């Protein structure tokens, strides 16, 4: 693959018209250090795109640039679905990298949804409406039974599913997942991938996911982007996995040690 992969690489050509998010020539510079250069990437509805790359490749930074948390060059265009979101202010769902919080916090799952959804102080009244809304969102990820659990009592996998449900409330134009399965056991990972994969079709979401779990994401992703300060290659999982630089970075080609030769 060449230096500037086509933004639609790995997609059937007819899908170009269905672009939901167009990232064109995006770059990010922090403290005069280029973090990302010349990122051109189109994300489509109903498609799961996974970002892989070594540590410090700028994967989380790309998500932050899309969220508007860091200043960037280039443009990001959102083409909203009719009647849902606006071009300049799309609804973006975001699942941050490992939500850190105090395990003694008295905030429970319902409080979290109520806090995010409404201005009415969660401390003042227990509202049946916010509870119903929380349950509805939790149903997306089959986690209704967790509604009264304190955040500190959830396992890593349960917490990620709850946060995934939160990032789907309201249903976003674009869903960003930042290493959603790091620190979660294999069963939890499989469940999480299955849920995400199912949601993308059911809600017709464009999803951009950062992951280190190369083996896990090749089966679930529609496209993989190999990022290392710039887009090194981009395409269908099978094509990207074959790329020599990726194989070198992830150590996929290490030959078994040869024995008995000088």
């Amino acid at each position: 693959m060449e230096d500037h992969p086509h933004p639609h690489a790995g997609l059937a050509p007819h899908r170009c018209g269905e672009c939901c998010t167009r990232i064109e020539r995006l770059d990010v510079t922090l403290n005069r250090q280029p973090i990302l250069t010349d990122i051109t990437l189109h994300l489509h509805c109903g498609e799961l795109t996974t970002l892989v790359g070594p540590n410090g490749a700028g994967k989380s930074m790309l998500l932050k640039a899309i969220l508007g948390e860091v200043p960037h060059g280039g443009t990001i265009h959102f083409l909203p679905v009719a009647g849902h979101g606006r071009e300049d202010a799309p609804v973006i769902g975001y699942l941050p990298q490992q939500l850190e919080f105090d395990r003694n916090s008295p905030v429970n799952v319902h409080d979290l949804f109520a806090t995010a959804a409404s201005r009415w102080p969660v401390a003042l009244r227990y509202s049946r409406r916010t509870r119903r809304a929380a349950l509805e969102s939790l149903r997306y990820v089959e986690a209704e039974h967790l509604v009264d659990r304190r955040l500190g009592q959830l396992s890593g996998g349960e917490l990620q599913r709850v946060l995934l449900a939160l990032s789907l409330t309201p249903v976003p134009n674009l869903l960003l997942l930042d290493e959603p399965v790091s620190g979660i056991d294999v069963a939890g990972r499989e469940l999480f991938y299955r849920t995400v994969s199912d949601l993308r079709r059911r809600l017709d979401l464009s999803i951009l996911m950062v992951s280190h779990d190369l083996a896990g994401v090749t089966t679930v992703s529609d496209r993989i982007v190999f990022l290392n300060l710039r887009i090194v290659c981009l395409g269908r999982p099978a094509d990207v996995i074959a790329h020599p630089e990726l194989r070198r970075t992830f150590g996929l080609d290490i030959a078994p040690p040869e024995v008995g030769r000088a």
Partner: protein
Amino acid sequence: MNLLHTLIARLPFEWAQFEFMRNALLAVIIVAPLFALIGTLVVNNRMAFFSDAIGHASLTGLGLGVILGLADPFWALVGFALVLGLGILALQRFTRSPMDTVISLSMCFSLALGVVLLSHGGSFSRFSSYLIGDLLSITPREIVRLLVMSVLVGGGLLLGYNRILLIGLNESLARSRGRSAWWPQVFFCATIALVVTMNLGWVGILIINSLLVLPAAAARNLAQDARQYVLLAVGLSLFCGVAGLIASFYANTATGATIVLVAMGCYAVTLGIKGWRARAG
């Protein structure tokens, strides 16, 4: 006001016969719930050191008030605390240094400046009442001012409560849910600065932070959700305030400090209950 005084005076207790005790009781009842409400957010958002710094640094506000020749240093106190609180926030954002470092250096600078200003002419001891506070000297006029400001601040805080709570849980998460995470923080820091300084006169610089933090910390030991957290904190704060006030009357001790000791006792009890619950499963 008079009606309240008459009502309290009817209580069959010795302390209720004194006007200063009745004033103090009213002040405690106004302020305790507000402290508890702010405290829940202070503890949740790990701002305890920030509020502590604001309390200590208000010494400088006092010094400025004296230099400007104000008869009542109240507004100089509030003004300086607001400038310092927002200054800390802005400095942290600008330098990207750790928050505790920024707070620590701002507090030391401000304290040093305050001591220099107040000791000019060798009269620092005049201001020592601000260090321990004097609740029993509160006047009806001050109580009315306290009430008006508490209602305004408390109302504003309730409007921003959810947002500030979410920022405390995870800032990135809060920011991804639209709008800004910056303005609620500015608003919250200003609220802390305002509430700490407007109550300094009667609690004292040295211990005001414990009134903010202790009821919330105690409530956190018992609460199962955010609503219980706030309700328990308000209840505990009212209880400790009133019990400490009455205890200080009979023991003839400084009121603010006595309230803090009672609150510390409450905290120890809740910690015990928490441990007992954990063992009981």
